[in-house]
């Protein structure tokens, strides 16, 4: 029995023979070799280099699962007790890798092919053609430009959400009732919102809102001009998601140390001064978290647009996601659509990383 190493966390000390270690390593490398060999064979078969092969890639998948199992078993064989600890995480990690990393790599490959589902030839690598096409695609740049507008609208949503959170935090009548009522839009599916509001209440002829506008002496047109249509999409999306920001801010407000606010009152601060000098700075970390999460939601905006305007008029309300949806669903343009999605993913990662970096100094609550 060993007397060295991490004795505190060791249940039993291992005395693993070299043969067992070699067996463990052999299992892993053997299964890996089988998996790679099958993959190479199948690839050669699929590309027409050899005749013999499987009708699909399923045997390669089975070989991969065999390798994953061998890898887990080998942990114990090679490392004993320490290997058992690894087994608490390794299967989950392999599962994530299988379902996230592999598809991501496959998507990366697809995005550099000309795969159109209607094409006879299937996916054919086409180099940088999709990137060039994207560079010249006015619809994509227009959608990206629209995303800037949509993201900027978050600032207005934040102000409204903060106001509502302050109201619900105050000692008002039926506070609990209003909290539930204000949360209702968030519980609705955006698809339901787009039909109930966008296509029913705002319907030019029958919609109750249209009737009110007509009664006021105006001719209703909610999606006729680019600016108004974009505003209406923003408004519907805001109506759905302001409660989300509001509830986060409300939670933040309720967690504020009361003594600091009371101290400011004792010092003679007015309501506005108390808000500006004490509450708002204390709320910054929560505010920024709410804004960042809301922006991430906003970058995925699509359902309302697809249902209400299909991106129109003339692309004025198109979001990147709704444009990609059309490329995929209506045009079966898998290669180009995937490239657009990958580029958008990279843009989102860069944008959110920079944003987090930029606001990190305010994310810590002041001492």
């Amino acid at each position, binding site marked *: 029995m060993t007397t060295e190493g991490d004795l505190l966390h060791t249940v039993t000390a291992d005395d693993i023979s070299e043969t067992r270690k070699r067996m463990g390593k052999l299992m892993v490398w053997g299964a890996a070799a089988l998996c790679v060999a099958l993959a190479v064979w199948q690839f050669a078969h699929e590309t027409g280099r050899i005749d013999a092969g499987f009708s699909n890639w399923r045997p390669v998948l089975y070989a991969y699962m065999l390798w994953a199992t061998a890898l887990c078993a080998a942990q114990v064989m090679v490392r004993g007790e320490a290997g058992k600890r690894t087994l608490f995480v390794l299967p989950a990690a392999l599962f994530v890798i299988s379902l996230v990393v592999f598809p991501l790599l496959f998507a990366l490959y697809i995005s550099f092919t*000309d*795969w*159109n*589902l*209607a*094409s*006879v*030839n*299937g996916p054919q690598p086409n180099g940088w053609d999709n990137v060039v*096409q994207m560079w010249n695609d006015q*619809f994509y740049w227009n959608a990206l430009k629209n995303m800037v507008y949509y993201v900027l609208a978050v600032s207005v949503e934040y102000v409204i959400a903060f106001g509502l959170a302050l109201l619900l935090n105050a000692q008002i009548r039926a506070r609990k009732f209003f909290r539930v009522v204000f949360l209702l839009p968030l519980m609705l599916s955006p698809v339901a919102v787009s039909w109930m509001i966008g296509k029913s209440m705002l*319907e*030019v*002829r*029958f919609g109750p809102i249209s009737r009110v506008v007509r009664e006021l002496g105006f*001719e*209703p*047109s*909610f*999606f*006729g001009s*680019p600016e108004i*249509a974009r505003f209406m999409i923003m408004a519907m999306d805001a109506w759905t998601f302001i409660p989300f920001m509001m509830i986060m801010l409300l939670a933040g407000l309720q967690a504020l140390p009361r003594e600091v606010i009371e101290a400011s009152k004792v010092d003679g601060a007015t309501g506005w001064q108390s808000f500006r000098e004490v509450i708002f700075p204390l709320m910054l970390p929560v505010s920024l978290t709410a804004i960042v999460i809301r922006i991430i939601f906003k970058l995925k905006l699509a359902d309302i647009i697809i249902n*209400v*305007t*299909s*991106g*129109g*008029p*003339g*692309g*004025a309300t198109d979001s990147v996601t709704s444009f990609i949806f*059309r490329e995929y*669903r*209506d*045009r*079966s*343009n*898998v290669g180009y659509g995937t490239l657009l999605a990958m580029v958008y993913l990279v843009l989102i990662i860069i944008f959110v990383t920079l944003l987090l970096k930029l606001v990190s100094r305010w994310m810590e609550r002041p001492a």
Partner: protein
Amino acid sequence: MKTDLYNCIKAAQKMNRRQMLKGTAALGAAAMLPAGKAAAAAHANVRAEILKIPGVGAGSPTDSDWQKVGEMCLGATKENVAEGEFAGVELTFMGLNNQNLHNFLFRGFLKPWEAYTGAKINWIDLAQADYNARLQQSIATGTVDFDIIEMGAPFEGDVLGKGLASEMPDWVKEQIDMDDYVDYLKAPVGTWDGKTYRVSIDGDCHSFAYRKDYFGPDGIGGAEVPTTWQEINQVSKDLVGKEDPLTGLPAHGYLDPLKGWGGFGFYFLENRAAAYAKHPNSPAWLFDPDTMTPMVNNPAWVQAIQDVMDLIEAGAYPADQINADPGTTAFQQFLAGTGSMLMWWGDVGSSARTSDTSVVGDVVGFGINPASDRVYNAQAGAWEDTRNEAPNMAYIGWGVYVMATVEGDEKKKKAAWSAAAHLGGKDLSLWASAYPSGFQPYRNSHFQFEEWEEAGYDRAFIEDYLGSNADSYNHPNAAIEPRIPGIFQYYSVAEDELAKGYAGQYGSAQETADAIAAAWEEITDQIGRDSQIAIYRASLGL
């Protein structure tokens, strides 16, 4: 028959029990008449008998009715297949489940067929919205897991063009009497490289619906119903500022949908363009059949786009028309009393009388796609001042196809074709066109109005409504959809460009059309120009 059409006719003729009994009594009496030739009498008898199930005006048919009809129409199958001949054969059928019709009917129709032949059918039911994606993915990933498919003709390029279907044996052609098809469903539709693949079970076309109260001696739209696009444009402009006689709201003329509809919206520009661009001297009107060069930016198509832009400029459309897709123009505008002229599939005519939101039921009239005073001859590159009519056969209708998965197993192949032939049988299709099924009449024998009359239908209404379909179907210059792979990709991208054009983002109609043409060229290159040319030519029968 489409469900709403059935309901419409019932509502239109205010079918009551007495009328229904009169109809069924007439059928019964006809059935008891002394027969001439035994076979002919038996055939006529079956047609009369199945039309009594469940009886016009006696509520919607149920599964037991479908099974009864399937049983009574088995005669043709029995001539070609021995009892129990397909024992042990399993087939998979992929189709739709729209409105609980389509596959639901097929199940009932085929149940007696299964009992007689011994075959078993497994079902894949799809919602309409999932259909295209499921089919395309099956084809693209090589996972065709069905033996029989219910499919629209526009997808023939994707399936037949890639050799994925089984060629129809001659005995099936005889069993289903293909000569009875209306003209436009005959070859080249349903055929590829001279081989026949499709058992038609439906027909489709756009027809013209108009408001009778807008036209006539005192009509605000003029004395006569417009019959050309030039007249329609003029009437639409002249109606600006006038009051709708029914609703008292602003009057409007023709309703163009200005927003896309997943590719289907392009059919509506086609309605206008067909009259200008579909010259009788060629079946091609969307692409040059030699090069696949788009014709969508030739003067004829540009004129169609220009017409719409002129009407936008003149303020002839209702407010927010830029956000109106075809669903809006038909169901939220025309049927609700906004606008006076529309092109649509059959549903609009039927919904006019049955929909709760429709206010135009008593004032709606029908016709075929309007003509043009002049037609563009693409081969000569010049306009000709001759009147041109070209009904738009938008979508062409559903058919049943047998996949190549059955090849190599003669028993299975015969079983699959026998099932398809049963569904597309002459007698069974009469029942399907007379009762809610999701399908329109598509055979010349479906337009024998006396059969409908004897079954209890109102002859005048049937003649008026179905007559417009029959005229379109058999028109010598019908504009037939090209059945090339990815056809809806072309339509979808065209919708995006048209939306930009209508929103004023392009300088002119020509610029808009050029943008569509450029996008179409890209799609053609991506899918493969040579294969597209070959398939396009095959689909046109060239």
